């Protein structure tokens, strides 16, 4: 029988980080680029958002929109080279963590900000038992002794509903199913009770019935621990189910930031509008899907003007010539980066595409 966590000597939790007014994270005008042989890929071009305690922010975008790179920048795990953070600040509880030493970053990564990856099989180490990998968090960050750390790992495996945790603590990652592996990764991520949890496509590789289990578990844990959750996904359905707020990304920029109900009722950016119209619905049978024409841009050659203009149904000359429109307030508590956001929001934007 596992001992209660309180009885284990897990070492002290750092009291250094305290949010002011519930504000955990501020990302301010972040720029990231990757210097490759084919040129400089501008993955993130001025991204700003914030996260409060208990808040769920969904970063929504397609592949290449920069959503995963944003998460990696916050975690401080961008491969450099080729990746470089060229501007902006990431403030955790008021401190710009980009200026901290690697040693201090390491003390944040795990106990304060933690992350779940898409592919649990490659995120977990195949040659160590899962219990050992969960216990590692306590041993390294808290200096807990081996047996107490392993007991804590069993408790955590129980918490994420892995049946027979005590028996399976010595099993290896490949001996678990995809859903169970994802649970183990969640156990690693929440081990030290982080204030911010970043989930990068946590259910993309899973079947829908398992996806429902995992999303339910994440929601439960968040409520239990008042975590701020950043959910990175391309799945509009998952976002509608769990998010409070949405940041919609396109070509390394946030093009709209709004509450989940506002955005799904009526997007203020043409990209969001196109995206919502292009997905088939399970609860309705439609005729033709309204696809967004063209392709997302190559990040080494982002088109001049608004990056979305070649695919936009409302694009005018100003969109092609002027610098990318900045995010501006278009309604209470929502911002969008489009010259015609008000018109799009009112459903009065003029279509300029010939059909």
């Amino acid at each position, binding site marked *: 029988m596992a001992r209660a966590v309180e009885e284990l000597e897990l070492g002290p939790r750092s009291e250094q980080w305290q949010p002011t007014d519930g504000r955990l994270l501020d990302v301010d005008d972040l720029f990231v680029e990757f210097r490759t042989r084919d040129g400089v890929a501008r993955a993130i071009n001025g991204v700003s958002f914030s996260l409060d305690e208990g808040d769920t922010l969904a970063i929504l975008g397609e592949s290449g929109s920069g959503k995963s790179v944003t998460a990696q920048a916050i975690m401080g795990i961008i491969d450099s080279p080729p990746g470089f953070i060229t501007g902006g600040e990431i403030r955790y509880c008021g401190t710009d963590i980009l200026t901290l030493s690697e040693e201090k970053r390491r003390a944040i990564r795990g106990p304060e900000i933690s992350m779940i990856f898409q592919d649990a099989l490659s995120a977990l180490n195949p040659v160590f038992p899962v219990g050992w990998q969960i216990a590692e968090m306590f041993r390294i960050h808290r200096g807990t002794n081996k047996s107490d750390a392993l007991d804590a790992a069993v408790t955590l495996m129980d918490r994420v509903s892995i049946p027979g945790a005590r028996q399976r603590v010595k099993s290896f990652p490949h001996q678990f*199913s995809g859903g169970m592996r994802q649970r183990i990764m969640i156990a690693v991520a929440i081990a030290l009770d982080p204030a911010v949890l970043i989930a990068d496509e946590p259910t993309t590789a899973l079947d*829908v019935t398992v996806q*429902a289990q995992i999303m339910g578990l994440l929601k439960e844990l968040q409520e239990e621990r008042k975590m701020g959750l950043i959910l990175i996904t391309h799945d509009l359905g998952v976002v509608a189910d769990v998010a409070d707020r949405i940041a919609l990304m396109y070509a390394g920029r946030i093009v709209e930031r709004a509450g989940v109900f506002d955005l*799904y009722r009526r997007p203020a950016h043409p990209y969001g509008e196109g995206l919502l119209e292009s*997905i*088939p619905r*399970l*609860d309705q*049978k439609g005729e*033709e899907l309204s696809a967004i024409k063209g392709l997302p841009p190559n990040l080494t050659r982002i088109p001049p003007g608004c990056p979305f203009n070649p695919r936009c149904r409302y694009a005018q000359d100003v969109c092609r010539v002027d610098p990318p429109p900045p995010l501006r307030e278009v309604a209470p508590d929502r911002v969008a980066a489009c010259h015609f956001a008000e018109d799009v929001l009112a459903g009065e934007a003029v279509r300029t595409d010939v059909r």
Partner: protein
Amino acid sequence: MSAEPIANQTPTKARGEVVLEVEDLVKHYPIKAGVFRRTVGHVKALDGVSFQLYKGETLGIVGESGCGKSTLGRTLMRLEEPTAGKVTFDGIDMYAQKGGAMRRLRRDIQIVFQDPYTSLNPRMTVGDIIGEPFDIHPDVVGKSGRKVRVRELLDLVGLNPEHINRYPHQFSGGQRQRIGIARGLALNPKVIICDEPVSALDVSVQAQVVNLLGELQREFGLAYVFIAHDLSVVRHISDRVGVMYLGKLVELGDEAQIYARPTHPYTQALLSAVPVPDPTLREAREQIVLTGDVPSPANPPSGCRFRTRCWKAQEICSVEEPPLIPRPDGTSEHDSACHFAEPKAVF
């Protein structure tokens, strides 16, 4: 047995003739172990699947990973030899054909694969990839007309015919999937098996490919077997839908019957688990969360295979396997394999 149940249904749109008839298809893969590689068991990937495909219709096949839906696609193409069962195409027994006769038959059944990154040879130009079927079937289009035909096909799937000499890596995922579709169309098939054709694509691009498949179907009267795990896409494109679980069809019916009046508990759970892109439905929808994982197809449960995760399971479920027969769904009836089939709206 599969003939009568379908005839009993009230069709939503007039059905044409049957192009593909699948009867009791079985595919078992041996599990080998030990020094002498002895067969110690079988993975029962397909365990008795029967259905009919009508001319010009789309039959969606849905199910979770490991349910056998891709094996079904590969066996229908005869990329895998079945363990037992029969597939009749236009009255011809497919698995009895050899050599030239089989090659001629393949002309009529083509496949589009899931991964546009690995299903195209990186060393061949797009023109060679799409033209390759004509090497094997020179009587369809001769050497002289090949280039013209390839350009036509490129144009048909919405690619620039000028790009005939480019290589696959010069195209995006969606464009590559169009190349795969063009290759599938090259021999004017009657049936195309689409194995997760849009799963690897971004949503905005996915819609383009789904629309393209619809247009091509209307233009050429193609019949699709559309295999996918995304239930929303399947609903969008399909006329009829079959739901698979552990190598068996558990429910089969018109799109409206499956999505609006599902009677099998597995279908109901599957549908309720799909997140709907509408936050206002958050509280309104009842989610049936299944516990546990899909059992191993090497050792499926006795009786009904879904019983280990089913909330309705009773004594009879472990003893007697429920047949896939028409069962009432409220307004009509459609095929369902559950002793306790009962319609339930999940939205």
